[in-house]
């Protein structure tokens, strides 16, 4: 038997849960700041409802991309090309030729472009042994270049009513894009936590050597992770195209930074092997709520930026603080039990 003390009592608390609670706390604080600063807006329930839906809708495309990014990071990689993939997929799916195939053709094109670029990323990284940072940075540059080439550097307007209506449709009163986000987050959660693919992702990112020794095809799995990220970008491209009713080579600018930041704030380790989908979603929502807070208070860009950096730091510190003090509390209680 392992000595009793060597098997600490099952942690009743869960790291991830606490982290997410911390983020919920951060969100609450942001909302309270909103209420305090703009009470007249928050006193109207229908505005509040709309506002929540707006925040969610604005988070939807980047949220989908962040789900893919979270998988890539948990799997030990990074994907700097997500914004560029969105641009390429968006531009490709809104060329006049593609638009002539209708909404189905456009969606299909966006997804195929996303998957194909992801595949190239994955193969370069897994089989070409390129560092993910460099491979996807190169892809960022190339894909944006190709998107500019295809679009002739013009904003391509989507004339397809079905595509454009994706952004306006509200089944059951909730925007379709929010439903899509919910679906992708749900699917991502199941994929990460309930499938062999997800469990292997953790293994590949956490201890690639152990994964290899356990018979997992680490290279193939790595390729699949980038393909998954590319697929999410394809979905994101459709969502963003429908929102802007157009696509252009410069769209989704710096989405890579936003997605990585959201994933990390949500508790995903940049070094791989650990992360949560729900946390990533909260990370995205924090950013989207901050933007909303700035908008309703009409902050100037420069002040906005100064404050935003501070909020990010405060959010992470707050989250850590909650987490640590909670853990200490529970640890002390546990020790009490032991001795």
């Amino acid at each position, binding site marked *: *038997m392992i*000595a009793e003390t*060597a098997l600490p009592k099952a942690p009743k608390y869960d790291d991830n849960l606490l982290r997410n609670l911390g983020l919920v706390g951060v969100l609450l604080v942001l909302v309270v700041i909103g209420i305090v600063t703009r009470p007249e807006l928050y006193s109207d329930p229908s505005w509040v409802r709309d506002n929540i839906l707006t925040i969610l809708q604005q988070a939807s495309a980047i949220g989908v991309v962040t789900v893919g990014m979270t998988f890539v990071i948990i799997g030990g990689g990074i994907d700097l090309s997500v914004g560029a993939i969105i641009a390429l997929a968006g531009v490709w799916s809104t060329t006049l030729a593609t638009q002539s195939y209708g909404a189905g053709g456009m969606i299909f094109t966006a997804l195929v472009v996303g998957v194909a670029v992801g595949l190239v990323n994955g193969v370069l990284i897994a089989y070409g042994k390129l560092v993910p940072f460099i491979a996807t940075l190169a892809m960022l540059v190339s894909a944006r270049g190709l998107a500019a080439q295809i679009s002739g550097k013009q904003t391509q307007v989507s004339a397809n009513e079905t595509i454009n209506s994706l952004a306006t449709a509200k089944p059951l009163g909730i925007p379709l894009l929010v439903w899509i986000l919910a679906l992708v987050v749900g699917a991502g959660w199941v994929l990460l936590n*309930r*499938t062999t693919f997800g469990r292997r992702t953790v293994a590949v990112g*956490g201890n690639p*050597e152990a994964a290899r*020794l356990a018979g997992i*095809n680490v290279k193939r799995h790595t390729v699949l992770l980038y393909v998954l990220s590319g697929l999410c970008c394809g979905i994101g491209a459709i969502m963003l195209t429908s929102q802007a009713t157009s696509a252009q080579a410069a769209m989704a600018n710096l989405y890579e930074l936003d997605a990585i930041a959201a994933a990390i704030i949500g508790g995903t380790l940049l070094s791989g092997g650990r992360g949560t989908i729900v946390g990533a979603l909260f990370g995205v929502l924090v950013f989207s709520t901050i933007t909303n807070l700035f908008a309703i208070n009409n902050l100037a860009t420069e002040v906005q930026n100064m404050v935003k950096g501070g909020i990010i730091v405060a959010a992470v510190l707050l989250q850590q603080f909650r987490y640590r003090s909670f853990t200490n509390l529970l640890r002390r209680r546990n020790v009490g039990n*032991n001795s």
Partner: protein
Amino acid sequence: MTAILRLSEVVKTFPGVRALDGVHLEVREGEVHCLLGQNGAGKSTLIKVLAGVHHADAGEILWQGEPFAPASPQAAMRAGIATIHQELDLVDDLSVAENVFLGHEPSRFGFTRRHGAAARTRTILTELGHPEIPPGRLTRDLPAAGKQIVSMARALSHDARLIVMDEPSAVLAHDEVANLFRIIRELTANGIAVVYISHRLAEIREIGDRVTVLKDGRTTAAGLPARTPTRELVGRMTGRAFEYVFPPREAKAGAAPLLEVCDLSRAGEFAGVSLTVRPGEIVGIAGLVGSGRSELLETIFGARVADRGTVTLDGRRITGVGQAVAHGMGMAPEERKSQALLLDEPVFKNMTLASFTGFARAGFTAAGRERAAARRTADNLELRPRDVDRPVRTLSGGNQQKVVVGRWLLGHTRLLLLDEPTRGVDVGARAELYQVVHDLAADGVGVLLVSSEVPEVLGLADRVLVMREGRLIHEAPAGELDEDTVLDLVMAGSLMEGEAA
């Protein structure tokens, strides 16, 4: 009994190293075949070839009579060879059950069947005598011994004909080893063959049927009976004749204490620990795995913050690592890879990690003098290879341990904390390490030693402390204790004197 595995003239080279240089091995159904050899002899490399991790450059492998060259770990597993690797090969952020079934998860359409996996894991763990390990717990929460058991459970989860165990007992305490042997006997009774690697000859005599000895990548003796006298086995490995060689020495008494620990406590780890170490004295701490010894050492060293109590070295309070090192304390931590080594850096830089500032002039490092000093230490420790410019990563485990100990021989260390200093260290190197520790003590250095090998504690230390569940429960001169007494204390905690602290 038929041979299910037969290797002949197997060769494997790494850049600049011929790790296997003509290995012969024959394993029969249902036997426990032990592999013996010094650190770096090629044991782990050999089993990695069998496990499909490395591919042999030359030679023949017959598995159940057929030529065999596994292309991947999966291929080896499918063929019926399961392996417990020397370095723990678990994923910290997966649960116990997920680790056990990693790569061959019970699943339906890609969805894991968690309850099935948990149930089967529980069954295997129960067979292993560890029903207390919860299949759903994250592996990172388990102590090293628990992880070793999970590794074992993983090997058993395959339908294997041959199970290879690379130093499974290194992180196990005495009773754990007995349990391991029970399992091995059950396996062999079912016709499963076991290849067993260990540096402890007593274990080999107890569990082994036959022994193959490797030296410098070559088989120097194949299929000897396990009862072969120690003298001959050790001779085949090294040219020496004894397993534990403790140089005789006399305890120095009377000097004022060098280290004084007073009522030291850390919540959940240990409580109310008081002890002293005098200059030139070797104090050993015995205890079960998980009794809190490592945490105690780390706290004394200042690497963890005590909740209560004080540590003084020569009358000076120690509150942080920097200060501890500056005042002449050194520690060889338990997990050398994660806690002590810069694996990609050369040996000499690892050896001077705590003292390079001392070699430097005005902030400029003196690589030449560092190298020379490291070379002298490498000679003292009989490091193999003697090359101090080689990255530590390419050294075998035992030699890596020597590098860690060597680090504290370079500075002006006056108190050395050793946590499991001989884990994974071969017989020859072990004797060398013992000699080094004795020489240090003779020079007036105080040593505080933690080891799970009771003979080591008894043979090396002047005074022994017994720790159980975070408390010191007994203290006596080494001469007044024997192995059984210590084991009783460690496990039951109260047997004879019962003077619990």
